[in-house]
């Protein structure tokens, strides 16, 4: 078929379902961004599959006019692996949240990353359980007051990007729900990546954890609290890019320096440097700005590709059910 594909727009990717997130939820912005970038991807709509687990974010597939499978709590990476193994032509997305992806489903997240299954994994991190009405999550900060932690939570939070790095993830990025341009760029790069593309999206829950990312989102103060990492460029931030991040080579710790006079000391972002990625992924406020952008990227063969190679090699041999049933030792009875 040489027929040109019809040009699709955002509307072609919006389903007819009424969106039912709370007013002001960061998920609306993410949905809009994803719907808008879909026509730019070189995949036909019928090959797009969104798989989700349980939670507010996991309602996402219902609002995409693609194939969608809203499954069970924490298991979306495993289900998506099955989808992709069954049909490697499909473009498979996993939509998950901090509870779904890193609490009940932490095990699957670890394994889908280490296997490098060819998926886009969008983790909506709002540091709280929304759908079950506000309990603390595995990314909630210590001391989070919630219905299940009236005196403040005592669990230490995990960092999704650090866990993803530790699990052997090959594309690890961070972005922000309302930063459409940045999020679009990061997700598109993840889509191009061969293997598991993990994108943590800092997402505001206006009901149970409102303003938790205000410092990195508020245009007035954000320049001091976030740093956009760009491959091959020095790490600078601040209103006038006056601050920089440098590696103290004696302590092997990062430190904040003024750009002026320290130009040659500034850390140059190298997406392919895992040690550096660990350092910048771990940066948190108030001492450090939060890094957004592609933190780490590694070229590695994908699980799906390798599985396909084995299957294709096996299928190259002749198969016959008759031959199988009669294989090995048989004997005749007259």
């Amino acid at each position, binding site marked *: 078929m040489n027929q040109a594909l019809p040009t699709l727009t955002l509307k072609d990717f919006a389903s007819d379902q009424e969106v039912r997130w709370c007013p002001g939820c960061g998920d609306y912005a993410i949905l809009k961004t994803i719907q808008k970038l879909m026509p730019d991807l070189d995949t036909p709509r019928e090959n797009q599959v969104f798989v989700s687990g349980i939670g507010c974010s996991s309602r996402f597939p219902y609002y995409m006019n693609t194939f969608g499978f809203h499954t*069970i709590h924490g298991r979306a990476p495993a289900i998506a692996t099955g989808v992709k193994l069954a049909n490697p032509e499909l473009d498979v997305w996993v939509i998950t949240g901090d509870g779904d992806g890193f609490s009940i489903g932490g095990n699957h997240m670890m394994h889908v990353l280490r296997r490098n299954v060819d998926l886009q994994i969008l983790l909506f991190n709002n540091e709280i359980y929304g759908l079950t009405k506000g309990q603390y999550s595995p990314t909630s900060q210590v001391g989070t007051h919630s219905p299940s932690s009236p005196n403040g939570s005592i669990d230490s939070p995990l960092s999704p990007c650090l866990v993803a790095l530790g699990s052997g993830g090959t594309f690890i990025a961070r972005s922000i729900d309302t930063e459409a341009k940045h999020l679009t760029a990061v997700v598109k790069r993840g889509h191009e990546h061969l293997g598991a593309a993990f994108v943590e999206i800092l997402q505001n829950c206006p009901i149970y954890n409102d303003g938790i990312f205000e410092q990195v989102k508020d245009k007035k103060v954000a320049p001091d609290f976030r740093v956009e990492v760009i491959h091959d460029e020095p790490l600078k931030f601040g209103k006038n890019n006056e601050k920089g991040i440098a590696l103290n080579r004696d302590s092997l710790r990062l430190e904040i320096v003024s750009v002026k006079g320290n130009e040659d000391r500034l850390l140059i972002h190298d997406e392919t440097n895992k040690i550096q990625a660990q350092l910048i992924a771990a940066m948190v406020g108030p001492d450090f700005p939060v890094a957004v952008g592609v933190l780490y990227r590694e070229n590695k063969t994908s699980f799906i590709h390798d599985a396909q190679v084995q299957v294709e090699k096996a299928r190259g041999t002749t198969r016959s059910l008759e031959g199988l049933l009669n294989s090995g030792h048989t004997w005749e009875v007259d």
Partner: protein
Amino acid sequence: MELAEEKLDEHHLDEKEVLDVVVRFAGDSGDGMQLAGTNFTQATALYGNDLSTFPDFPAEIRAPVGATFGVSAFQIYFGAEDVTTAGDATDVLVAMNPAALVTNLENLIDGGLIIVDSGAFTAKNLTKAKYESNPLEDGSLDGFRVFSIDIHKQVLAAVEPFGLSHKDALRCKNMWTLGLVMWLFDRDRSATIENLKTKFANKPAIADSNIAALNAGHAYGETAELPAGIHVYKVPKAKVAPGTYRNITGTQALAWGLIAGSELADIDLLFASYPITPASNLLHELASHKEFRVNTFQAEDEIAAVCAAVGASFAGSLGITSSAGPGIALKSEGMALAAAAELPLVVINTQRGGPSTGLPTKTEQSDFNMAMYGRHGDTPIPVVAASTSIDCFDVAIEAVRLAAKYMTPVILLSDGYLANAAEPWKIPQADSLPSFNIRHYDDPTNFKPSIRNEETLARVWAKPGTPGMEHRIGGIERSYDTGEISYDPTNHQKMTELRKAKVDGIAKDIPLQEVCYGNDSGKLAVVGWGSTFGAIHQAVKRAVAEGLDVSHIQVRYLSPMPGNLGELLSNFDAIIIPEMNTGQFIKLIRSEFLIDADGINKIAGQPFKIGEILAAIHKKYIELEEGV
């Protein structure tokens, strides 16, 4: 409570000709007893006897040498008539050490033959087996025929020319012993010799040593001065239908049935599983057959395995997952998702002794209730059970057919006995198997994911990658009309009833229940499901031969059950239901059909013996005759 058991007809090892024999090879788990057993099985099949085998191994892979808990055994029952169990009692026991003797002696018939390696009856090994004195010397084996040989010494002499290390040389003990047993039953060694050449193709010295040991064992029987009452036994050939035969275990038959199912359905399979005893071999078998429309995925856990299978089904392949009881428990949420989303899925449970880790290498039927009821929500799932190793082939095909045709999960029950037991199989003609092409839906006109087949009530299977089929499904209740999310009370009632009606409707698409031995009505029916088939069949056959009015009914379709089952059972004055659990199927029979039944329940990790079922038949028969 121990089950009453009747001793079957005495075997006469002092006769030249015996109709059937049970031989049990027992030794350390590293002694190669399984290899000796499988080679003896092959030679016996070639000889023309009917047979059934059962490997009985410990959970420990390499237990300390000489330990009683490390004894690995392989039992073969072969004879001139149809053989459907691995045998009640042992006629010939091969014991490679004191531990093998002490753990297997109890089941040896009076006057049975013991072949022992006296070289292994050292003070150390005797102590490990908790023998206070050497049974070969203290007269405690006087009731048996004892053939005591220093196999250590014989083997070392036989393989001496090949220059093996002492340790490697002793590893040929199993072949020496096999050679002797082959002499005892006049079996041909050539197939075993070929197997050894293939197995050790890259190690010619090892191959030659094993062959030399095999021949030496055989020659020993021919030339040595034998104790009284030990001679070559002739077991007449069985009358079997002409055709091409092979030996097959339940696991292999199940794997090949799934492959056949995919060919017949014209559909790809994704088999996703997590290793667990005794189900792992199914993964191994399918992983080596990707030339067919099969892909396998070793998931990170049981939950991921069922979920990957459900994902594959969503994508248009047939997802299959497999485990044993504890693993199936973990899969229950994923199975219910498939039921809610109405996607096909085959779940295979190779049952083992429970609860919890229980008896991983032993057999049981105690997951019946879990298969029938073990889910949240009102979630009916069809359940089928395989009754013999070869039946696994047909039941696997049937599970594929039902899952794909009705867009539903299907549970297939096997067990540890069936998985490992082997029997000769008359190989079917592949082109004679009935095909059942499965079509994915691809008509975009007014497409909705809720479109159903009016007859089967199955939802359409519209797979990603098909233009115009874009849709969303999930675990949330869906509208009957549109397939979109619906919390409407009336709709939920309708959908719940629909799911039930769909599964119940399968009863119209399965064969009516037949009586597999005996009359369609009468005094007594022995009703079984699963691997109890062999023992029930033999017991009923013997009872009928005695002139008793007894029939055997074996139920393959447990949910839904065949439409005529209730009526059929009501044609009998009494029903006995043997189960390897505390009585699970029997409750279903009683509650569904309001028919009383007596349970015989064995929960010992071992299959029923023929004599146990026969004793129950006699007991019930006497009650019926006396009118109590």
